[in-house]
């Protein structure tokens, strides 16, 4: 059994089973939305299932499945643990989002979202083994790799 070398949190969310190397991407997104958020991160932790994984503990922010789904591109198989008073009160697998709004810039350099004060908006579709993001404005589809 592996002992994780990070402290338990009283209230918040633990995102576990993040593919090694993707934790910092999620941290970056979290910090863009929550400037003063307190985070603890473990990188390249040993994992039975994944060999190596990243793990993030977020203090005082309880992620709903919809909010957590924003990180599905980086950690499609993550486990989300919601913590209240040091106890896991909810545990769920990452869900695939149907839409992503305002998270990523459209890769099409001639898309109107790059020139107007509006949020980007993608519909998310599963195609074979990967996700495709279709811009709701310029109607182009992009593979998930372009956003990682």
């Amino acid at each position, binding site marked *: 059994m592996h002992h994780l070398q990070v402290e338990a949190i009283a209230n918040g969310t633990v995102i576990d089973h993040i593919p090694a190397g993707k934790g910092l991407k999620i941290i970056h997104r979290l910090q863009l939305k929550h400037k003063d958020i307190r985070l603890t991160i473990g990188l390249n932790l040993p994992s039975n299932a994944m060999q190596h994984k990243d793990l993030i503990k977020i203090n005082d922010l309880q992620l709903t499945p919809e909010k957590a789904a924003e990180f599905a591109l980086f950690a499609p198989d993550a486990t989300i643990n919601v913590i209240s008073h040091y106890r896991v009160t909810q545990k769920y697998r990452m869900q695939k989002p149907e839409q992503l709004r305002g998270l990523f810039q*459209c890769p*099409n350099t*001639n*898309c*109107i*979202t790059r*020139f*107007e*004060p*509006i949020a980007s908006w993608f519909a998310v579709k599963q*195609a074979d083994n990967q996700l495709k993001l279709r*811009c*709701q*404005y*310029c*109607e*182009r*589809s992009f593979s998930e790799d372009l956003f990682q």
Partner: protein
Amino acid sequence: MANSLLNLDLVSISDLNKTQILSILARAEQLKRQPQPNLLRGKVIASCFFEASTRTRLSFETAVQRLGGQLIGFADANNTSGKKGETLSDSIQMISRYADALIMRHPREGAARLAAEISRVPVINGGDGANQHPSQTLLDLFSIFECRGQLEGVKVAFVGDLKYGRTVHSLAQALALFGAQLFFVAPSSLGMPDYLIEELNEKNIKWQRLDSLEQAIDSAEFLYMTRIQKERLDPTEYMHIASQYILRAQHLEQASPKLRVLHPLPRVDEIQPEVDQMPQAYYFQQAENGLYARQALLSLILGATEE
């Protein structure tokens, strides 16, 4: 029957279902046969061309005038507040408070979808960058419908630049609703994009790549020619390749007299002028049909009924 096109925004051809497309074609046929000079009387249509256009703008504006509507607008973004730094969003907020409908062309992809979100009145996309041009697709469909009496199972060969041509993409998507059989004749570097091929496969549409213009003439009822732009290929490749996609009168001498040649225009040299005299040439009638397809679209979206 209720008019499901009333107050609809038309941004992409995929905004329309089969029934809506057929109702536009039926109305276009009526208006071609029997002009309705007062159908849009009292309506003000904004024609907002943030990018220059010849056929689309003139045919939309003629359509409004032939139906008795009034026009406001501009033919060039240099004459707008955009030049002073106004956002498109603000321009649309303002224009949509003046007019009953807005026809718009813009150089950026997605501009028409954004305008439709903001506008209080219906928005008709007259082309947004390389993305969509749905009224062109409607006039293409109307031309096929007019020649053949129906769209079901039509055999269409697309020739030329199938990678970048938005008219080809939208028409192929629309024809897929009608179980069409499609043929593609293009240089390997300018073939149909993968995402479109996937869409056709998902809908079980029969399609085939052909090696030559001659094969396409033998296989299809309609030959949809497009222009190969020089800048898409390196100069040597262009010299070798482009000539294989030029339609000449001799190609059509042995062809079925029922074959029809379509082209979204403008053409450069991919259809030689001598073809204009052949019975199969239909591209100028097709351009004229833009007038009726756009009249039909405007009258249905604005809920204008015959007197």
